[in-house]
């Protein structure tokens, strides 16, 4: 991510990856793969949201809470007859506003405290959803959330929904990438690197972190709403502590720097539970082990392996040219 210019090979790689993703419904053996890919798109948005927060040096264990808020807001508004395409954005906005208010208070805290309080927030979101049963349907949740329709075209079935989810995920990816390259992105990275030094360079690091938290949680709200309209259902169980943990796992396993890490994390960990389904009870144990082993041996995520490999290639290439010059 350090190189300011993009090589043609990288353009090509991105194009091929996007083309593969777009063409997936045609070569997928059955609908289940399309479903998995849609879930992957939604997960990618959530993990990117988390990555933006992490870029500014904080980890959020309450990410699921914002997805839950977004899901309920969009479900309730669209049940009242609002167009779902609009309520998706309102959901993101509501989550962002809550995050801004909460972040302004709790982002004075050092990393660990912040995690604990953000986490407590997500518990409260679940409790409120359970408790206000006259509005939210309590533990039963809300069934029959209207599907998204674009200019009268209703996204009811999986093959129709997938392109929309993919579009949203790619847009989020692009936005995240642009954000990382913007001055704000640099300020975020600097804050994560050394908060005091950044502060002394005249940057309001508290504000930078609040902005990052707001953007990331807003994306989570949008993604939660998207998922709700896809599954046409939401309940307090949709986004629990373990969902927040699984997004964090994807981010950590994939890598926290750059946009490649979240993509890799989602690609590896979204299908993993399905692959492990045959192992029954071992599923979660393996999941936990993957997380711990990754942290032990690849603490910067799988994406860091790509960077290490690239750096090594560069060294080999330069030494090869040196040798070529010396040996006539």
């Amino acid at each position, binding site marked *: 991510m350090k190189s300011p210019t993009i090589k043609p090979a990288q353009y090509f790689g991105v194009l091929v990856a996007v083309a593969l993703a777009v063409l997936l419904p045609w070569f997928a053996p059955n609908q289940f793969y399309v479903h998995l890919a849609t879930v992957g798109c939604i997960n990618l948005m959530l993990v990117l949201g988390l990555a933006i927060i992490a870029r500014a040096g904080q980890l959020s264990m309450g990410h699921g809470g914002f997805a839950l808020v977004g899901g309920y807001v969009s479900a309730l508004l669209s049940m009242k007859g609002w167009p779902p395409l609009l309520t998706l954005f309102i959901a993101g906005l509501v989550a962002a506003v809550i995050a801004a208010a909460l972040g302004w208070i709790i982002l004075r805290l050092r990393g*660990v405290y912040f995690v604990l309080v953000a986490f407590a*927030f997500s518990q409260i979101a679940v409790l409120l959803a359970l408790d206000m049963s006259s509005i939210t349907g309590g533990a039963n949740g809300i069934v029959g959330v209207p599907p998204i329709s674009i200019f009268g075209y209703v996204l009811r079935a999986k093959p129709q929904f997938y392109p929309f989810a993919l579009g949203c995920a790619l847009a989020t990816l692009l936005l995240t990438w642009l954000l990382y390259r913007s001055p704000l992105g640099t300020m975020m990275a600097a804050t994560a690197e050394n908060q005091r030094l950044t502060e002394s360079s005249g940057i309001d690091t508290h504000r930078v972190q609040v902005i990052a938290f707001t953007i990331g949680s807003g994306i989570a709200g949008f993604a939660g709403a998207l998922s709700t309209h896809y599954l046409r259902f939401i309940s307090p169980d949709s986004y629990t502590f373990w969902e927040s943990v699984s997004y964090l796992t994807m981010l950590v396993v994939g890598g926290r720097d750059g946009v490649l890490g979240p993509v890799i994390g989602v690609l590896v960990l979204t299908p993993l539970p399905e692959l492990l389904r045959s192992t029954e009870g071992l599923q979660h144990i393996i999941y936990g*082990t993957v997380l*711990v082993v990754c*942290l032990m041996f690849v603490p910067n995520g799988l994406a860091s392996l790509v960077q290490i490999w690239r750096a090594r290639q560069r060294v080999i290439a330069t030494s090869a040219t040196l040798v070529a010059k010396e040996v006539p």
Partner: protein
Amino acid sequence: MSMNVILAQTVVNGLMVGMIYVLMAIGFTMVFGIMRIVNFAHGEFYMVGAFLFAILYGSNEMQFAVSVFLAVGATALLGLVMEWVVFRRFRGNELNGMIASVGVALIIQNSALLMWGSSARTVPPVVSGVLSVGGIVFPWSRLVVIIGAIIAVVSLNLLVGRTRIGRAMRAVAQDAEIAQVQGIRVDVIFPAAFALGVSLAAFAGVLMAPVLSVSPFIGLAPTLKAFVIVVIGGLGSVPGAVVGGLLIGLIESFAGTFVSASLSEILQFLVVIAVVLLRPQGLLGRKEREA
């Protein structure tokens, strides 16, 4: 029932739950203070302790004292293994250590699920009968929990405050490097402190097993409470954990009796926000020296 009786019983319930939270929070805050690891798996050790006690005392009908000793000892051993395999690699690396502990929690909880099944077990009460003071009755089963927890807290206080190893632990918590220079074997103190923290969680599990039912999923709730309490009391502060734990226990008991259980959760969250706003280092926490 008169108001007095309800009040007295609410207080006893609050103290009981509060003391369990205190035990959980002390272990949690000790591990953080000394190893700088936020242990999301803390409640899983509580669960393991409760389960082992349920099996030894409930199913195998071993003696009470033997069951307690074996359950806490075996859990401490599990803690030592986890420290040795996982946690020692993340010492001082707060964020990665925290995420790794989530992985450990997943592993322990689901292993328990595989081994012991998902159905809840009940443990026969250790004592029966009631204590009546001035017309107000208290069930002994709850008083035993409070007394047991008080004994644990007092003996921990003596251990940390009066013994050599306790002093070494305090030194390591203050500054591991300087402690090492003074000749303290840091690589012994870390596992010892971790095992001690875990034993407290296991003991809390043992105490609660006869009062509540035991299942592989009971670990998460006390972990969450431990988080809330240490934020209120101050991360790394043992007296803070005691005050915070009792406060949360009483809030829970009073709000649960007079209003509703979920209001008590929201109230606790508001207390946390208020503490964070007014006294970010916690009620009894010391301001941290920034590195």
